[in-house]
């Protein structure tokens, strides 16, 4: 169910909308989407503006740069940023994953050191989790953390990372011990990525933003930069990643593409549009049910898997439908002067295959629901 917003929360949504509709923000966002091939933005002015108001991590306490709000305000901000086309990876990686992990599992010193910069939109963070051949089976990672005095040196290769080239630090999963159980022996490190011992190379893809190949070549990490317990990083990941999995980002992306599609679709498409509109509405309700669960302190993994699967598949369906309904003009890139709706359909089409892969693939969600909800044998 959609939580009923308090007058203050509704006011917050109105204020966020006002800021994001500001001409300067609109220009900056449009420009970011038209950057030359091979270039992409990191932190934008809009991040700094939101950060200055304490809104970027609005649910964090003021001492860490937030505004002491709830998850409902945070979800509202995420939804509005995506609806207004602000590139969302910077925010998702820095605040929703790395920031959240530090907020939940960091030492007081780590929180003081890392959170305010992220919340103010002044620093960026990314994740270094996946590796060649690891895919959805994250526990099979093999990056090594070798003991070095009272710290460690990291060796390994990380792939499918994004924004490493712009980040100040990364949350990196590495193996501190090996044993019969893969899930044990993983430790999370806060790694300064722009340092000796870390090599970042681009891995070009069809998407707007590049993947990074990050080689860890013996960078030294001290005990103070371990997040959570040594060997117990899996617990942190298990706690943090589902919290990010509300489906709200995918739901907002589907809404954005559909809004443009509604505007540009020729007559005769009404049936298909209504079908998509109903799907998008249902997805938003599933996403907000997860937000409400988090707000009530009762995260529900089946609800999360359902929302993630449904909203990402819906966002993909809307993107594909845009081509089906609009034809070739839908494929014009934002950089083309004839592009319709600022190239939103082309961008959605290129982004959408990743939506059903990242944050737990559709197959992982289906497997989880089959075994945990339906009780089918695994």
């Amino acid at each position, binding site marked *: *169910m959609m939580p009923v917003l308090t007058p203050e929360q509704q006011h917050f949504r109105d204020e966020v909308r006002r800021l994001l509709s500001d001409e300067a923000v609109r220009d900056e966002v449009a420009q970011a989407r038209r950057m030359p091939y091979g270039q992409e933005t990191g932190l934008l002015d809009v991040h700094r503006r939101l950060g200055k108001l304490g809104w970027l991590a609005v649910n964090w306490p003021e001492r860490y740069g937030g505004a002491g709000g709830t998850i409902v305000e945070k979800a509202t901000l995420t939804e509005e940023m995506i609806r207004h086309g602000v590139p969302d990876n910077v925010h998702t990686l820095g605040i929703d994953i790395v920031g959240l992990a530090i907020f939940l599992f960091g030492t007081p010193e780590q929180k003081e050191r890392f959170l305010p910069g992220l919340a103010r939109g002044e620093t960026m963070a990314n994740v270094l989790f996946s590796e060649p051949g690891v895919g959805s089976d994250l526990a099979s990672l093999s990056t090594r953390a070798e003991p070095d005095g009272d710290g460690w040196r990291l060796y390994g290769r990380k792939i499918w990372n994004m924004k490493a080239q712009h980040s100040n630090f990364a949350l990196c999963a590495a193996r501190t011990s090996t044993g019969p159980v893969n899930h044990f022996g993983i430790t999370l490190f806060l790694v300064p990525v722009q340092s000796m011992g870390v090599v970042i190379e681009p891995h070009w893809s069809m998407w707007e933003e590049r993947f990074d190949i990050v080689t860890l070549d013996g960078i030294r990490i001290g005990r103070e930069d371990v997040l959570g317990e040594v060997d117990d990083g899996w617990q942190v990941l298990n706690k943090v990643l589902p919290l990010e999995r509300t489906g709200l980002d995918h739901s907002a992306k589907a809404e954005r593409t559909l809004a443009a599609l509604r505007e540009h679709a020729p007559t005769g498409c009404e*049936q298909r549009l209504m079908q998509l509109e109903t799907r998008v509405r249902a997805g938003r309700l599933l996403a907000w049910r997860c937000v409400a669960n988090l707000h009530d302190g009762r995260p529900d993994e089946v609800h999360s898997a359902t929302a993630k699967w449904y909203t990402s598949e819906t966002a993909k369906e809307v993107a594909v439908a845009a081509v089906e309904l609009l034809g070739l003009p839908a494929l014009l890139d934002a950089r083309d002067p004839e592009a319709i709706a600022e190239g939103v359909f082309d961008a959605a089409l290129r982004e959408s295959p990743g939506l059903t892969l990242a944050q737990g693939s559709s197959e992982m969600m289906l497997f989880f*629901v089959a075994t945990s909800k339906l009780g089918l044998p695994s």
Partner: protein
Amino acid sequence: MTDAVTTAIEGFFDEDLAPLVRRMADRPRSSGGGGDDESREIRAMVWQGLVGLGALDNSDTVQLAELLGSVLYQGPLLDTLTARELFQSDAIGQAPVALAVAAEQWSSQGGLINARRTFVGFAAEVDYFVVGGVDTAGLRLALARADHPSISVRRYEETGRGEAYEVEFARTPVTAWAGSSAEWERALANARVRQAAYLVGLAQAALDHAVAYAKTRRQFGQPIGKFQGPAFRLSELSMHIDATRMLVHDSDAAAHAAANLAAASDLARTVTTQTMQIHGAAGMLSDDDAQLYYRKAAVESVRLGTPSQLRRESWETR
């Protein structure tokens, strides 16, 4: 979330009664006579039970409708709930009512109606009809006593093998007139939300039936539910049901009634078709409920408009 009346009715449909309810309006193909009488008695008993437990005065009729769908209830209750939104209860008391409304021409001069209405549910056992039709005054709705000799009914032979009738009104006297067409629009929207909830309940019951089968039916040395093909298909259906359930129970559901019903209609037909596939040929047998869900979904999913009509209407009125 469930209110007391719905909880009581849930208890009423216990494991002894539920199998009878599922076939309370399903004429067996093979039986000679007698099957119909037995079903009619069960329907009368279920009606008494529902009324006695307060189904007509229930505040959360959407939750109730989902429950009715989950046991595949067949009877006049949903039509009666709609009729009670249009006519004061002192006009119809606690009597069962059937809707015979169509945006088609009729004559209603001198308080006597002439009309032919199709696919009217349970016409042979209700006390009243709500008859609707269009003339120069626009869409109007009349209440008529069902036992008047001017009314003739014919039961269809159809996929659902249920209680669907063609009804002919030939100078049938009107007992009461309902208000404006705006009231009908409102009542129809609520009826569609309930029908959508009914279909969600039906889809869930069909899925439960399929999941139970997938856990026990073994092929190639293991339960078929262990194969990812069937398992993932069932997971997808389960999540589609969840999503559609969110739509029908949303506070904004009536504003999107037509589009929501179209989605529930697609859902019910898809889930029951897949339930047949999971069951293999065993699902086609008369004593298996898979074919029952499949046939009833076909009927119930287009009762208040086809998905394409509903989506067109929804687009035009949004």
